[in-house]
């Protein structure tokens, strides 16, 4: 037991020195860690170094609207965005970030170049394109382009949708439609006007977002 205590004492002494290595730190509570370092050391593990993640569990951040990224990180930090992916992964990571760090992270990812996702079933994508451009008039659902822009590029706090993973988009639409996880957004109203098949269609279209007109 004496040896265990000794080991513990050594460990605690080491901890006490609190060596920090700002250029390659993974500390999420140190306001001095530059945002680009956090983006590389931590965010990149799921979202990719260039904001283009390998796994569709994680949203593509590359080229995302800066204001949208800032707003989301702030809402994770304040727990106002509480969809499952939000609280499971992002509450903790964002809890100690400073405003400056949040803005720096947003700057980092907004500058990256988004890569297109894989195309899905052509018929499904065609149906999605229709909704994206024209909405669902019989349900008074407005077209996506109205807020997210003709290229799905987003503006300010309206996010970029083009090339976003279909799985992520579809899950978020269900969050808007069926939960209170992301309150205070027009999407709650919009999502109610879409069936699950329509959600799938528009998500498939946005993931590939073919540019031919």
């Amino acid at each position, binding site marked *: 037991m004496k040896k265990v205590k000794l080991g513990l004492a050594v460990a605690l002494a080491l901890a006490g020195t609190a060596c920090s290595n700002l250029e390659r730190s993974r500390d*999420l509570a140190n306001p001095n860690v530059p945002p680009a370092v956090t983006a590389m050391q931590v965010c*990149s593990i799921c979202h990719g170094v260039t904001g283009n993640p390998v796994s569709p569990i994680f949203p593509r951040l590359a080229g995302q609207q800066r204001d949208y990224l800032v707003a989301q990180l702030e809402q994770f930090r304040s727990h106002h965005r509480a969809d499952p992916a939000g609280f499971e*992964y992002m*509450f903790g990571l964002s809890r100690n970030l400073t405003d400056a760090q949040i803005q720096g992270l947003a700057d980092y990812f907004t500058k990256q170049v988004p890569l297109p996702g894989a195309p899905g079933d052509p018929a499904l994508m065609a149906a999605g394109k229709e909704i994206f451009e024209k909405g669902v008039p019989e349900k008074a659902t407005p077209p996506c382009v109205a807020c997210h822009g003709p290229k799905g590029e987003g503006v300010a706090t309206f996010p970029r949708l083009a090339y976003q993973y279909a799985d992520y988009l579809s899950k978020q639409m269900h969050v808007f439609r069926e939960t209170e996880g992301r309150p205070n957004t027009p999407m709650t109203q919009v999502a109610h006007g879409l069936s699950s098949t329509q959600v799938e269609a528009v998500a498939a279209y946005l993931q590939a977002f073919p540019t031919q007109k």
Partner: protein
Amino acid sequence: MRNIGAALRGRLGAGGVSLALLLLAMAPYEAQALPAFARQTGQNCVACHAGGQFPELTPYGRMFKLTGYTIGTRVVPLSVMGVAGYAKVADTSKSDNPASDFYKNGVPLLASGSVFIAGKLTDNIGAFSQITYDNYANLATDNQYAGHTQADNMDFRYADRFIDGNRDIVFGVSLNNNPSVSDPWNTAAAWMQYVPTPSPASHQFIDGKSPFPGFGSGGNLAGLSAYLFWNQTLYAELGSYRTSKGALSFMSAGLNGASTTQLNGSNNPYWRLALSHEWGPHNLMVGTSGMIAHVYDANSDITDPNDLGRFKNVGVDAQYQYILDPHTVTVQMAYTRQTQDYSANTIANGPVDANGNPLVFVDANGNPLAPVNPSDTTNIFRAKLSYVYQARYGGSVALFNRTGTSNTLNQNSGYDPVFGVTSDPTGALGATALSTRVTGNFSGNPGTRGYTYEAFWMPVQYVRAGVQYTAYSKYNGASDNYDGFGRNARDNNTLFLYVWGAY
């Protein structure tokens, strides 16, 4: 289930069920109310553990580990874990002392608990260390068990990550006490077996006690390894182990001299090479690992070079994961080939009984058995398929198969020259070669094969309740009469229920 539940409540008023309920009550549905690592990152278990089933890691969990447990915020690095279990062996009749051979059969028990000191210490240094209290660690002569606390898995590491747009290199050093405990994949020997296994004899045939690919040296050692993970594709690790003594004796704390593995010197190398690839929600690893260990027969005596034996293990393993909420699918495969060169004294002395006395078996016709082989080869293969839905409901099926060379050295049951096969429990016969029931090996062959089926439920993310059924088609080299007393492999089939919680 109702009867078991009632029995659990009856037997464990302040035990396993209470522990589980306490854990349930203690924790609100919030990310902060989790074991140490989750408190450090503020994330849910599913971020690092595939489908929430610890300890199996996600790609992110592997990076968390390889970067030295340093992501997040420094918090109090303490966690606790407890296990309550219930096991029932299919047939307990073929034993002259079932109360001892299957102690606590069909009885719910509070099996073990662990304290973890785990987490970020500095920007580059982190720890995962486990100290376990086993409620049934030691069996006394009066057939009563006594609890015991000892060092369990320990991994202290220094890590750094060099990453930019063109490269991603994680480099680290791990000081640990169990070969492969430093590994981030769950087909590594230290991590493939995961449900804690209670000690009482009733639990000796549960999945956790069936053959797993591993290293002949076992744990409670002291080792240093260096590793590199290049572009999240190539993983290489090289290390060496020695006896945990002196300043490193805390790595086998709680073990007495006779229980501490004694290695010869520091030249007991361990290596690991793995290729990893991720595409979409899929990831695949294919790897190899191995170790050469020089181990003394008697832990308390390292003076006689003729007591020194050698293990060589070489293995291949692979793991595939599909992780996309609500589905988690994992396929695991591991194979290890072990060559054990026995010490000169072991070869000369042949098989011995529990007290170290020579066992002089003969064949059915009274002829002496073949001489001891100086070396044995054992192959262990294990595969497992698991599925988890919503990180809440899961199931798995696993196959294990151990084959190997036969050796009179492995035999602890056989024909006494005068009395035939006997365990002579009362000493009335005066037999010179006493056979072992239930765990006996009549053939000298290690062949053991079977399946394990499991279903589990995680009502909240840090509590898991499971039911396991392990079915044997071969045990100790035979399907039927493997111990010489008529016990068949299928008699060992075991139902195992457990509740496992952590905070």
